[in-house]
Structure formats: structure tokens, C-alpha cells
């Protein structure tokens, strides 16, 4: 398993645009291809800084070691980044114009630096409301011990 090379991440979401599944092509129940990711301290801390969250549980090893977590952890919402880290460029979640309408997440165990994170995800449903094309998708993140880190459901409005 390769570490995620952040320098190689494709930032242009128009690339592979034509390869992505449209609303008509998304099959509820079908697993989306995913890529396991080695979660580093640098990835966690970059994410935490971007949301202005300098909690010592994410930054101070000595402090975190004495806490109930027994070591550094990631903020619960790290799944926001892991969703993109664990999916390929042609995944439909990257489609330009995808509008996030709502999310619900349950947190089981904290993600930690050094974890190898695996995502299992699929669309669960698609529907039309007020002429908008919606997809409901389910996502579960696991660590290297196959323990659930968090699980969640999202509602997105598809651009086409």
C-alpha cells in the first residue's frame, strides 16, 4: 500500500470529467472503487489548522499520551479529507458543481496518525426533488484492524 502523495493529488476536478458517472449512471448499491490511505501526522495537522483547531490532542504528543486517547488523534471530521484521499480522480463525488445538501456521521473510534484507512462506500438511493437530482451515499471508514472509525451518509445534488 502506497502512502498518499499529496503532491500528486489532482487539483483540477475538470480532468477525467467525462469518465465520471452521471446521476443517470450512478447505480445505488454498487460499491465505489476506493484506495486505502496511510494517514500521517502532517495530513491531520494540516486539516486541523485549516479549521482553526489547534487542540493539543492533534499536536502535542506528550499531552495526548496522558489523555484517555493514549496518543495523538485526528479531529472527528477528518473524514471530510479522507473521502477525497480514499477515492480515485474519476469518482463522481469530484464532479464539478456537486452541491452538498446534508450529512450525518457517527463517530466510533478516533483516527490516529499511522492508521491505514480503508473506505467502503456506495450510493444508496437517487431521487428527484424540485427538479433537482439527488444522490444519497453511505460511507464507512475502517482502520488497519478493521475497526470502524466512523460511518456516515451524505445527500448531494448532482450537476447532471
Amino acid at each position, binding site marked *: 500500500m502506497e502512502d498518499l502523495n*499529496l503532491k500528486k*493529488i489532482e*487539483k*483540477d*476536478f*475538470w480532468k477525467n470529467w467525462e469518465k465520471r458517472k452521471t446521476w443517470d449512471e450512478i447505480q445505488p448499491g454498487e460499491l465505489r472503487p476506493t484506495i486505502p490511505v496511510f494517514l500521517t501526522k502532517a495530513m491531520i495537522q*494540516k*486539516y486541523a*489548522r*485549516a*479549521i*482553526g*483547531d489547534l*487542540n493539543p*490532542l492533534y499536536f502535542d504528543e506528550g499531552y495526548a499520551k496522558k*489523555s*484517555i*486517547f*493514549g496518543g495523538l488523534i485526528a*479531529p*472527528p*471530521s477528518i473524514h*471530510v*479529507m479522507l473521502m*477525497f*484521499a480514499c477515492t480515485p480522480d474519476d469518482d463522481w463525488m*469530484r464532479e*464539478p*458543481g*456537486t*452541491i*452538498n*445538501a*446534508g*450529512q*450525518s*456521521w*457517527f*463517530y466510533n*473510534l*478516533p483516527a490516529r496518525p499511522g492508521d491505514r484507512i480503508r473506505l467502503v462506500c456506495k450510493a444508496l438511493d437517487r431521487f428527484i426533488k*424540485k*427538479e*433537482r437530482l439527488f444522490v444519497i451515499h453511505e460511507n464507512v471508514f475502517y482502520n488497519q484492524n478493521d475497526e470502524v472509525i466512523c460511518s456516515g451518509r451524505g445527500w448531494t*445534488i448532482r*450537476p447532471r
Partner: protein
Amino acid sequence: MSPNRFEEIEIGQVIEGRPMEITRETIREFAEASLDFNPLHLDSDYMSKQEFGKTKFNEVIAHGMTNFALITRMMTDWLWPHGGIHRRLETRWLKPVYSGDRVTPKAVVSKKIKTEKGQWVLFNIEVRNQKDILVSSGEATAEFPVSKLFPQ
């Protein structure tokens, strides 16, 4: 972790989160950190032309997940010193957030529940902008564990 303070928590208790000033730079920084480079958040030219059904934003919008992350930041800031664990968050996005906006999350304790194996607190969540317009609403759940949760 601090001792479990479940018994002290009162229905209607308000938790004020720290505000965040949204700028093009914070949106760019969130894109880099979350790996979500959707042109919705970065491409003014695209947003000035693109229509989303009957909606047109005219300008780039902040990631909805920034609000989500601000709420989780508020929850963990408050919960950990109270001996609680952030267990669940559900949000809906009601209005777009633009560069120049200032967003502030808030939680209000709505219920306290004891189950066979746990103690739970439910919160109503909202995020408002500087004009006091509700941009996001939702519900959160925290557990106040009665036994050790993360064995080492």
C-alpha cells in the same frame, strides 16, 4: 480526560462556538487540507456563469464541510473538558457562505438520555452568519461514558 460531568448538564444549556471569518484564503486552505478542489469553491469565472437549477451563486462559496468542521470543533472543545465524547452530527446546509462572511456555531442541549450502557446528551445545532441568518442547522449527540472507552 476530565471527570464525567453528565449530571451537571442542563436542558436548554447553550454552548457558543468560536466564530470563523471566511476569506478566499481560508476557502483555498480548506480545499488544500480537505482535498476538495471543486470549482464551486475556487473558480469565480465558473461561478459567475453556472446555474444550479434555479439557483445562481454568482461567486465562489465556502465548503459546506467548513461549517461541519466548525461544529465538531465547538463540540470537542466543550465536550472533552466535560468528560464527553462527540458521537454524532447531522447537518443540513440552508444558505451559501461567501468570502467576507463570519460564521458562528451554537449548540443547545435538548435532551439527556440514559440507556442500558450509556449516558447521552442531544443538542440542537445551528450556524449563523454575521447578519444572523441561519446558514446551517442540525443535531448532535454526545456520549458521557460510564466505563473506559478506549482501552490501551
